[in-house]
């Protein structure tokens, strides 16, 4: 298909420009000195300084980090357990359960948000950071499951058989063989879950009570009350942090 190579290449580059242009513009203009317009008026770090001084943002950042940390640990405990546990089931049963567990990744997020809201209200659990953490641990379990299962599939099953032949109990095999082999995948999955939790807006939006503001909720309310260069600066930070964490996660998964 050499003939159309040039055309395909141009279309592909145009696609990349479409994907990266807006993010690049956003980051560039977070350094713009002008408050009011999208006209370039010289470099400035003013908006980053304004972010730093904003106490409400600091509180939201602390909330976000807390939610992401706790929900990641929870999702890892449950997800890794599921991933290893599924190995013990036989073909058909295993596939059915695994597919069912992946459903939260497929349904629209709004559905997850409102159904959780409904659930928490009906069981009379007040909305707070705890409910947010529960929501995040819900959508992060399938993420962990996918990543750890991918790694498990690549493991040599003979390693486990050898351990058993040498008289290791199932607990010992898990503790000294399976888990160490899975470590890069578990770390990668943890970073991925952490990032997704930091970034999540929709589930948080429906499950957060008053006072339980996370950074994305804060960004949302800032956007709703009028655009400002501070939002650009905060967005730029989001982009950099997410990309860094995800990059690290992908690196770990590849090992």
């Amino acid at each position, binding site marked *: 298909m050499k*003939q*159309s190579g040039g*055309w*395909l290449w141009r*279309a*592909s580059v145009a*696609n*990349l420009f*479409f*994907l*990266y242009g*807006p*993010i690049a*513009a956003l980051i560039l*203009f977070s350094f713009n000195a002008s408050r009011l317009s*999208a*006209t370039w008026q010289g470099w400035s770090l003013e908006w980053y300084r304004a972010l730093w001084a904003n106490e409400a943002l600091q509180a939201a950042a602390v909330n976000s980090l807390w939610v992401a940390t706790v929900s990641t640990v929870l999702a890892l405990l*449950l997800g890794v*357990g*599921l991933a*290893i*546990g*599924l*190995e*013990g*089931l*036989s073909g058909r049963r*295993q596939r059915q*359960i695994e597919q069912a*567990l992946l459903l*939260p990744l*497929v*349904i*629209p*997020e*709004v*559905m997850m948000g*409102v*159904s*959780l*809201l409904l*659930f928490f209200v009906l069981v009379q659990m007040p909305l707070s950071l705890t409910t947010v953490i529960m929501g995040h641990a*819900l959508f992060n379990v399938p993420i962990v499951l996918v990543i750890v299962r991918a790694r498990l*599939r690549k493991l040599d099953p003979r390693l*486990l058989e050898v351990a058993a032949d040498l008289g290791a109990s*199932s*607990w010992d095999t*898990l503790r000294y063989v399976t888990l160490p082999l899975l470590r890069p995948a578990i770390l990668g999955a943890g970073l991925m879950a952490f990032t997704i939790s930091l*970034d999540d*807006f*929709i589930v948080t939006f*429906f499950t957060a009570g008053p006072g339980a503001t996370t950074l994305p909720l804060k*960004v949302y309310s800032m956007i709703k009350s009028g*655009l400002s260069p501070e939002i650009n600066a905060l*967005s730029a930070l*989001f*982009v950099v942090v*997410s*990309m860094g964490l*995800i990059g690290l996660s992908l690196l770990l998964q590849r090992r």
Partner: protein
Amino acid sequence: MKMSVPVGRAPSWWLLGPGLVWMGLLFVVPLCLMFVISFAGRGTYGGMVWSFSLTNYLDLFHPLYARILGQSILLAAGTTLLCLIMGFPLAYYIARAAPNRQGIWLLLVMIPFWTNFLVRTYAWMFILRTEGLLNTVLLKLGVVSSPIELLYSNTAVLIGLVYGYLPFMVLPLYVALERVDRTLVEAAWDLYATRWTVFRRIILPLAKPGVVAGCLLVFIPSLGAFLTPDLLGGARSMMIGNLIQHEFLVARDWPLGAAISCLLMLFVAGMMRWSLRAAKPLVQPEPES
């Protein structure tokens, strides 16, 4: 062949148990509750009255709701089509690139997907609004004499949705196209097939599982989109997701909100059932060795 560890040796239920209970409690139970509540009635002062009726579902035929449902389907379909048109050349290019280049291209496609959705949507507000980047540039270049109104329209929603979900289309398309046997295409060239014939008779049929999977992965989240129409759409660009949010958080008519959610769920489940069959070769690759 898939090897599984002998059942007796693998610790199983105590590992599976906590996760299954957690997912059951927070995923299955809430969705079931939603289904039950969609048949309940609404109290005079808000809140729910436990009675069985189909009123909520019948209410959805009201022109106001029907219009939003119809519009959501149109916008989601438009998004899917645009993603397909834009994503196909890209996926094809990646699939035909040198193997060491493919990884880099795929990573480049994935990275934007891994950045915050809220931030990506905001980027388009920044570009499209009246005093935004696009209007500033167009005015400077003298293309337009007064700013054009782009934000808060269906067009803006469409752009935002395509932007958000394009990677979902490219990846499955790539997986399918990468498997297309090159010699088939070469054989067709040798037999004097035109470029169009090669595409229509060879590449497209072989890529079909990828097309179906990609369309599904784009259509479902587009249909249930909340943030994009909320930020980029105007009052007339409401989608199902916004309607659900409105009923739950603003109008406080939970039974109606639940009914809309169930309708969305039904739609999504139906689409998945239909297309999983068509995309099967992609989801379940033939066993190795």
